[in-house]
């Protein structure tokens, strides 16, 4: 298993429970999509997996390792929804230092940074800081940073948010190739067609719990939906009805 989450609960200091007793297993090599409205718990789940918050309860294992271990952390790459780029250093340094945090030698870190700048068409902006990059460039740099240590599990939180059509197509193509090369991908998105186009399996999250899971085709059949948009609305409606009952 690439990711095994059992009984995960996260209650924030203010008392809000974002994720409640959540179980989720993602197979090695899967392309898994996580859908849900704002506040459903997607980013909280990702934050818990990546050690960015303190779970209230539950267990998380990454390729069999406890998610807090160094072994687990080196296997996960995260591209966040927000543009969380270091404001003080340039694009190339960002990748070099990030590679260093994962234990690469100085020579390998610089080599890997240049490879990624080249792959993401950012070589001309290697010496530019965050504020000097366009939104699309920042988005590409975030993905490059997530890949600098060649993770086996890549977590993409709204990777194409704000991207234009051309960039979105490029990112889709690149992510597909990563998946083809054996990378397990966990994707959250608000673009339903993106989830349908890319993911083998989809789960819908609502109020911190998974309310439906399966392939897009299987879910459409189960909820008698014509397309992914209708499916999404029916799943949420069904969950609302069940919760109210």
């Amino acid at each position, binding site marked *: 298993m690439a990711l095994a989450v059992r009984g995960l609960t996260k209650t924030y200091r203010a008392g809000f429970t974002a994720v409640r007793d959540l179980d989720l297993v993602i197979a090695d090599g899967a392309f898994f999509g996580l859908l849900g409205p704002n506040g459903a718990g997607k980013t909280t789940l990702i934050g818990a997996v990546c050690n960015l918050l303190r779970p209230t309860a539950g267990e998380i294992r990454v390729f069999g390792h406890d998610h807090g271990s160094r072994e687990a952390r080196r296997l996960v790459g995260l591209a966040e929804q927000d543009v969380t780029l270091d404001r003080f250093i340039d694009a190339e340094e960002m990748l070099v230092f990030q590679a260093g945090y994962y234990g690469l030698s100085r020579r390998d870190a610089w080599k890997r940074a240049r490879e990624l700048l080249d792959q993401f068409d950012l070589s001309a902006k290697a010496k530019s800081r965050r504020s000097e990059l366009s939104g699309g460039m920042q988005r*590409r740099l975030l993905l490059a940073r997530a890949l600098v240590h060649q993770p086996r599990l890549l977590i993409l939180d709204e990777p194409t948010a704000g991207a234009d059509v051309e960039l979105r197509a*490029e990112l889709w193509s690149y992510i597909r190739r990563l998946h083809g090369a054996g990378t397990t991908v966990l994707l959250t998105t608000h673009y339903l067609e993106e989830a349908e186009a890319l993911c083998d399996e989809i789960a819908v999250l609502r109020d911190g719990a998974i309310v439906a899971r399966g392939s897009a085709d299987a879910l459409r059949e189960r909820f008698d939906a014509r397309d992914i948009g209708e499916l999404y609305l029916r799943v949420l409606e069904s969950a609302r009805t069940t919760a109210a009952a």
Partner: protein
Amino acid sequence: MSAVAPHPEAGAFRAARSPFLWLLEREIVRFLKLWRFALVGQVLSALLFVLVFGIALAGRIDAVGGVPYKRFILPGLVVQAVFTVGFVNGTTSLFEARHDGYINAVLASPLRWWEINLALVVGSIVREVIVGAGVLALAGPFVGLGFSRPLVAVGALVALLVTGAQVGVLAGAYARSLDDIYSIESLAVLPLGFLSGIFYSVDRLPGVWRTLTHLDPLFYFVEAARIGVLGTGDISAGVALAVAGGIAAALTAWSLLVFRSASTLKP
């Protein structure tokens, strides 16, 4: 976007170069990129105090305990400069990392909590040393610098470097807004500096002011530094070093607890 790299082998984490050293290097690179403010500006501020108080006004101010005024104030000015630099470095580095979210890239990596704390603290100390050395190198020739009790001076310096760095890191860990940081700086750091006996001997103060100065933690760092440089002070070297060392140790313990629990770094 072309080639896709293969995955590394799974298994125990092994680093070709310590992630701690990488984070420390990033901390140093960060302030070197801001050298005009981070280094030159800080040295210049302290130097201006030396020039105005120690040289321009020296003729109108009596010697303190037989020590020329410009020599008397230099140890305290270095203490204030180093402490302020430590505070500013820790707060800007950690607060900005939390505020902009790029601390997540560090927290998600194999870096351990104590490595993150140590890199931030050592990074601040490097900046403190550069600024402190700059002030001494430029002001020393004007005032005639020497170390009467070198061991006391070294002890005072170590305690001061650690304290300044840890205060900055703690403020950076707890601050929720820039307003918090500016408030701490103007309502705590600045008054503590001016009331720490940099510009006067505590023996010359009336009762209440003397008591207030003794309650100021920075007073013990100023006294320890002054005894190390001039050989004389208002309290004994043992008391000054014990209090300064105790403050440094307590702040370090607090800082380590904050990073271990991650209570302010992770929701």
